[in-house]
């Protein structure tokens, strides 16, 4: 993307019909560390890669609980993400108060998208620099949505955002047809493998990632580090066996499991 004379204002169109400020905001999402979501008929799993500025600091919080039945993972400007999660929580609790009933995730996502769109049409505002993976339940089952800074939103079976997310997407593209009928454990396993794809060389441990689950009969919660570490270890053993059967396709890096 090159600097040009049409990219100063969000309210300026380019001759090609593009809003460069909005596109630059979407670039910010790509710079953030990865976040991945997968859903089945009854569960949605979100995972994020924890980036810490230095060894001395703690890592940024990227997964937020919005309500018992909705959670989000963000990538990009985490400050914008924090503000938006406050808005989402507020909308959910207002709905619960008035109607004694959980806000359907599809409606929350539309409200969020409309809020993001406003920032693309005011000269005194800027678009939010954060992409959100919204995982939630409503009457029709489990849903995973991706909300863009542009104000667009899409529903996904599985998706990855942030840096090196293409590697995760490639992994997910092979397996997505099986996700709808997957069990919760399979979803967690697949999301951990997808996270591993984005690490490209670094070892996958529970300190480097966060995993959260929401499902039918299971309120949104972030899984604790110890359980994640145990799962990683048990999956790595299985992956050693599975690689022999070619379950994991050849596009993934050919490092022996225990060497990563």
């Amino acid at each position, binding site marked *: 993307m090159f600097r040009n004379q049409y990219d100063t204002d969000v309210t300026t169109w380019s001759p090609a019909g593009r809003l460069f400020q909005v596109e630059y905001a979407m670039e910010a999402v790509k710079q953030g560390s990865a976040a991945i979501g997968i859903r089945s008929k009854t569960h949605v799993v979100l995972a994020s890669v924890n980036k810490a500025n230095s060894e001395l600091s703690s890592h940024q919080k990227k997964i937020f609980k919005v309500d018992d039945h909705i959670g989000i993972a963000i990538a990009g400007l985490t400050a914008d993400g924090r503000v938006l999660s406050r808005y989402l929580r507020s909308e959910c609790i207002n709905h619960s*108060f*008035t*109607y004694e*009933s959980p806000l*359907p995730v*599809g*409606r929350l996502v*539309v409200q969020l998208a409309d809020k993001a769109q406003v920032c693309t049409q005011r000269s005194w505002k800027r678009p939010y620099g954060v992409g959100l993976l919204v995982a939630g339940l409503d*009457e*029709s089952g489990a849903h995973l949505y991706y909300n863009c800074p542009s104000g667009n939103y899409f529903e996904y079976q599985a998706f990855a955002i942030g840096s090196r997310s293409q590697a995760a997407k490639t992994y997910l593209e092979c397996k997505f047809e099986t996700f709808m009928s997957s069990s919760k454990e399979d979803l967690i396993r697949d999301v951990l493998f997808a996270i591993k794809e984005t690490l490209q060389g670094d070892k996958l441990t529970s300190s480097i990632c966060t995993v959260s689950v929401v499902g039918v009969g299971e309120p949104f919660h972030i899984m604790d580090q110890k359980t994640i570490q145990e799962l990683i270890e048990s999956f790595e053993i299985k992956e050693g066996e599975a690689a022999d059967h070619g379950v994991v396709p050849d596009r993934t890096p050919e490092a022996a499991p225990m060497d990563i």
Partner: protein
Amino acid sequence: MSLIASTPANNSLLSSGMESERTLYPYVTGTSVIGIKYKDGILMAADMGGSYGSTLRYKSVERLKSIGKHSLLGASGEISDFQEILRYLDELILYDNMWDDGNSLGPKEVHNYLTRVMYNRRNKFNPLWNSLVLGGVKNGQKYLGMVSMIGVHFEDNHVATGFGNHLARPILRDEWHENMSFEDAVKLLEKCMRVLLYRDRSAINKLQIAKITEEEVTISQPYSLKTFWGYSAFQNPTKGAEGSW
């Protein structure tokens, strides 16, 4: 009720006659509504009378209305406030439908919305002078609740407003049971309505029964109950108290 006739000297605190207007008394009122759960859903009954004080002025007032796909609302109390509530709910259902996303407001949501509206108005000392019965079925779940004009709300298997609380609910407590058939439930409601007809002076003998199930809402055409006045004690009513009339 603004003090149109008052002189400027009296309301010096309130400029240009802008007295706050709020409901002080009801004018045209409906009497009891009864609602019960039965096997397939909810049944509600209400008569069609609108009293203007002690005069039975309006005799074709529909006090049972369907709300959206899943709910039925019955109201007693001020009829104009009931019409206002129907306008609020109309807007609510309209916006709900405009989402066009497969989600819809069920009876529980409508009941809670009404509770918030009634309680909010009560807090502003400008109540909607109604007692509301809200019933419905969604996804196989039956729901029956009540909201009063001060925002008191609860759910139960059988509810009634006004005189119905005193005359109908004792009958319902004895004779209601789970999974009543439609015919049995109608008989029970008619029994309660008959007692109300005999004993509530604002009741008239023209009622509607409304049914809501998972599939549909039906509100019956108005009809009358058979009454019996041939009791021997009515032949010579002053027998036990000579001189009275």
